[in-house]
């Protein structure tokens, strides 16, 4: 069997005395849709940061397709095919939409060091960028400066940046956060239609979206996993109900 896309082994991350992630092991198969849920402060985003390399784990191991990446800096992990979105939109607001996407595509591309030719002259990149933008529903917005984009459009751009580099693994940190219910529907549909050669790990607070998208769900609570199972198992589990939905 091929190695899992992401494997986290006894991972811990402490901030001083606070163990935001205490002891987490999980393994996500290639092509899987994994959703992380859990109440605020459960350690979901911290775990994400450790997988993406934004934060260095205090203990434990992270591997990507069997290769140990625990000590690899963030940019190298991106070079290995890992992409992410941020919980709070993190895009280059002074640049245009297309410039953002160009940068996303150039990240793992050696041509990012080219100094003698305008970036707009790379027609293959521009074509690919146009496709990515239409995929997330930003057609016709390519030359708009990001700071003039609406909140929802920035969320779409977040996703475009994650997809533009043809990643193998995409980490989505609450992609639907702050969107209106109808936008959420559209957005989760968009995520559902992503091809299966991309492995998705996603944090989602909206339990309906989470359960509809996920192959498997991992429930975190106070830095530990309390359940790892199918959406049905999660729905039926009493402990999850108690922790996540509150005592009924």
């Amino acid at each position, binding site marked *: 069997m091929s190695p899992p896309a992401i494997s986290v082994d006894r991972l811990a991350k402490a901030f001083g005395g606070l163990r935001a992630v205490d002891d987490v092991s999980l393994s996500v198969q290639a092509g899987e849709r994994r959703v992380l849920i859990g109440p605020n402060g459960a350690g979901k985003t911290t775990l994400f940061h450790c997988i*993406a390399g*934004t934060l260095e784990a205090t203990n434990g191991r992270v591997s990507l397709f069997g290769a140990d990446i625990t000590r690899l*800096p*963030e*940019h*190298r992990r*991106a*070079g290995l095919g890992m*992409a*992410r979105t*941020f919980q709070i939109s*993190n*895009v*280059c*607001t*002074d*640049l245009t939409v297309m*410039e*953002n996407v*160009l*940068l*996303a595509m*150039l*990240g*793992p591309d050696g*041509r*990012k*060091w*080219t*100094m*003698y*030719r*305008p*970036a*707009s002259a*790379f027609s293959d990149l521009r074509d690919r960028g146009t496709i990515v933008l239409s995929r997330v529903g930003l057609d016709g917005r390519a030359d708009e400066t990001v700071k003039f984009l609406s909140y929802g459009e920035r969320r779409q751009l977040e996703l475009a*940046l994650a997809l533009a*580099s043809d990643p193998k693994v995409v980490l989505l940190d609450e992609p639907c956060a702050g969107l209106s219910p109808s936008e959420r529907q559209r957005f989760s549909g968009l995520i559902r239609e992503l091809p299966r050669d991309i492995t998705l790990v996603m944090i989602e607070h909206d339990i309906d979206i989470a359960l509809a998208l996920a192959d498997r769900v991992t429930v975190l609570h106070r830095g530990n996993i309390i359940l790892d199972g199918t959406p049905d198992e999660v729905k039926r589990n009493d402990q999850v109900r108690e922790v996540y939905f509150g005592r009924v």
Partner: protein
Amino acid sequence: MRIALAILFAALGFCVPLFASEFWVTLLTQIMIFGLLALSTDLLLGHTGLFSLCHAAFFAVSAYTVAILQVRYGFATASAAPLGILAGTALSLLFASAVRTRGVYFILITLAFGYIVWGVAYRWASFTGGDNGVTGVPFPALGPLRVTSATGYYFVVLGVVLIIAAAYRVLVTSPFGLTLRGIKSSESRMRSMGYNVTQHLYVAFVLSGLIASIAGVLYVYFNRFVNPTAGSFPVSVEAVLMAIVGGTGTIFGPFLGSGIILVLRNWVSGYFHYYTAVLGIVFIVTVLWAPQGIMGLIARWRSGTRGEGA
């Protein structure tokens, strides 16, 4: 439109000596040289978001190198000028280590770097000539081609500045230039997209040091001598302020800022003893009411009139 404007300016530049007095030709030469230095700092400030206070160091090291090689060792311009650029750029390879820090720490480290060079130029009198510096630098000559007047040198500077400005334009629109603007906008986003941010900043710093070194070579042949003032803190600060007053992130802005500041200095100081106070007021007004500089005001005014027309 923009290119047409640039060509018009260039053509106008070549015609200036036809109608302007030697005073203005000399002043314009000086404006272009310091404009180039301002442009070098703006590669970091306007495009990358780093506020450097040590660019006088590269400027001075290349100027001193040329002066010492030509005056003391009899080098020709053809070898002294490239070696000057090389020396300044080599120093920037070292000082570029400052990009490991950000914000106020970056400013303080570059400030300290700048003072080291100034201190050496000032104190190592046996080599640098101390306070007096190195005098008697000849006009530049390339084989039989010899500059013999301020007007002749004006053309040399204009030519070099136009070439650098054109190259700079290509650089900032290239993928590498785009990367720098991306880093300025969001470093964490760039890292997550696979950019080794420090590496890009390092290269940007060295390129900016290279441009400052070219300005230093132009300066030493203009001034015909060099002393520690060239590497002093005020030169570093003024270079950045020129870029801010003119408009950061543009090519013409730093030259415009250089023009404003040097004309003020040359003109106001004739009537008014406290011209540095006037400069101070200009900076305060800029920061408060036109943080994007004159070029920013022009852009705002243009988009404003266009908006009304639509």
